[in-house]
């Protein structure tokens, strides 16, 4: 019996030296058992919307810092330069930081401060709203939300209105952000808000 065991051992050792590891596809989120189901409730819907809006604002604001002079040097030039591109890029670039942050010595530490050459800033120059179209969409959403609280009779008419609004907003959005290639992040959900809104009106499930 001992010999048998030893023989097996030797056989096992000799045969199982170094086989290639079995390649398994890497799953970032594999299925786990016994986790239970999560609770779905729309109690916090307003909170989620607010958070989403804040994130969007920060991502589109000059606070989302992407490096100073490096950025401007690496601007992608489209294959065929058009005159309209140049104009729209200038108009849609993010406002500089000092429009919003007071960089004088009273408000920031001395070594971060900047001279007060540009202190006098007319209030009209500072753009507090990065996308007036965006705000417009939000308002639409709010109005639509008030109208369609469980009224299915008006659904057809709403569909037409929404599609028109949607197209119009999308055009505006495209114009505004066509040259924002550098500033666009992966998760720039400018349009998704609208899509969610529209879905909200068609179904009873509220989306945002």
């Amino acid at each position, binding site marked *: 019996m001992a010999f048998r065991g030893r023989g097996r051992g030797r056989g096992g050792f000799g045969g199982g030296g170094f086989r290639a590891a079995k390649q398994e596809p890497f799953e*970032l*989120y594999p299925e786990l058992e016994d986790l239970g189901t*999560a*609770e*779905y409730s*729309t*109690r*916090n*819907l*307003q*909170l*989620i919307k*607010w*958070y989403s809006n*804040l*994130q969007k*604002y*920060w*991502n589109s*604001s000059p*606070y*989302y*810092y*992407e*490096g*100073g*002079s490096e950025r401007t040097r690496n601007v992608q030039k489209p294959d065929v330069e058009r005159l309209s591109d140049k104009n729209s890029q200038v108009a849609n670039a993010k406002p500089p*930081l000092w429009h*919003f*942050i*007071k*960089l004088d010595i*009273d*408000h*920031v*530490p*001395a*070594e*971060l401060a900047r001279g007060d050459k540009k202190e006098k800033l007319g*209030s009209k120059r*500072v753009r*507090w*709203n990065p996308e*007036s179209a965006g*705000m*417009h969409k939000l*308002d639409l959403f709010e109005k639509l939300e008030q109208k369609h609280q469980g009224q299915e009779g008006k659904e057809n008419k709403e569909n037409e209105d*929404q599609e028109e609004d*949607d*197209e119009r907003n999308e055009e505006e959005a495209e114009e505004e952000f066509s040259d924002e290639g550098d500033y666009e992040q*992966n*998760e720039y*959900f400018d*349009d*998704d808000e609208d*899509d969610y809104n*529209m*879905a909200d009106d068609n179904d009873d*499930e509220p*989306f945002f």
Partner: protein
Amino acid sequence: MVSQYGIKLATYLISASYGDFCSKVCECLLSRGTLTLMQIIRFTELSRENVVNCLRVLIHQNCVQAFSIQQEVAFGEAPKIVTQYMALFDNVIHKMRFPKFMQIVSEELGLDCLGIFEGLLQHGRLSLNQIIDRNKQTPDNSDVHVVQESFSILLNARLVERCPAPEPFLAPSSEEETPAKRRGTKSAKIAEAPKTIEQRALAEATPMESIRFLMEIDPLTGASEEKGMETHNVATLDEKWKQDFSDAELSASGRKKEILWRVNFEEFVRRLRHKACIEYVRIRLGDQSGIVLSAILELTRSSETTIKTDKSASLSINDIYDEVIKKDGGLGMDLERIRASLVQLGCQIPTTGIDETYSIDLKKIIELAQNEEVESVVLKRYGREAYRIFRLLSKSGSLLETDKISDTTFVEKKDTLKILYKLWKDGYLHMEKVSVNGPKQTLFLLWEINKESLWVRVLDEMYHAALNLRLRITYELDQEKEILQLPKEKLIGELEKRYKRLGKVRIILESSLMNLDGALMLFHDF
């Protein structure tokens, strides 16, 4: 120092909101502590221009505080003054709960105040003129007077405060200075631990209580700061508002300096703490006790000086009664019922009827809530028997021997040992070995719960969970980003299903995150 996953979560929040450069700077400050500008540049390996701009953004968004300090130099050299930067971890994590703050403002003060408040959250710091200008560019812009009045309301409710000083100078303190020598602590029975430099910087930067919520100083008299404090608190609007210098004050050099305002996080945390206490009491002790507690807390809120107050201020039974009947559902309560609720809340009815005052032990309520939270985690992860054992150890507060635990909780000795070992391995328990030299040498194992270290571990796990949730939300949105960019008409059939699924998934994940955030605050801020 902040725990490992706390740093990771904070870094992720900054990166999602303000970009990778800012998050590098923030991570550097959180993991290495307070640094100077040159040190930050060296450690992050970013260019000076980038670091400077990131610091500007982070300070403006209240995530970093600067202060200047006298550096020790070699003998004979003139003393050098350097500026150091510290990360404000709490404020970074608060970004996750900005919507909860907005909810408080919206429910209590209305939409006009909410508009201003949202601006303060977006920009971190704004002057009154900036608030007015910003409001002009919103679609539903209101009259200047409405804006000023809304701002005034926010200020009176203490939800908005003056920004701290940008670069306070910390006079070199003698290390020999004992706590007893500091003002105000002579009567302290327990010696306070000497303040760290960061605590001193924050204390130095905070504006004095008397001007923290004070709007204006009389510009006509050109009063200095001291005189300004004597003028009455301005709540009335008058012609002064129309002047450009309505919210200016004289800076040290005599120039007019615009005051910047920011959200008063302390007040919001206090309100959320009260909400959590009331909710806990309502669930555990019933609606009536909840109403009584909320009445008491509302009356005593303005007298709380720190966030983590142990006991509420004392109130007489009549004051409590007056407030209770004003609340929903409180109308039918009489003095006897209120007294009964107070007993439930842990108060003792005084025997002499002359001075009937009560104060609630808030610390106890928070502790009970924390215990429940940890016990439910143990129940979910390790099972019912482990839950019983954990509760026993948690209540006893001292070292218990394995057999004793097994007898008291009616768990088999073998299983007890297994469970205790598992809990100990995961850091929930503290173990001590005692060997007794008798006829046979026996080894006893003693177990206990070390609350401080356990709470730190639980908090770190929660940060980890919150980070995972945020990453998962981003991942799910990223997976479906093509769908999100499609116009609505094209969303039919398969695409529509995916779209709806995405909506549900997002709501579930974000709601879970909000709930988890409540637990985070319970262990960190309350």
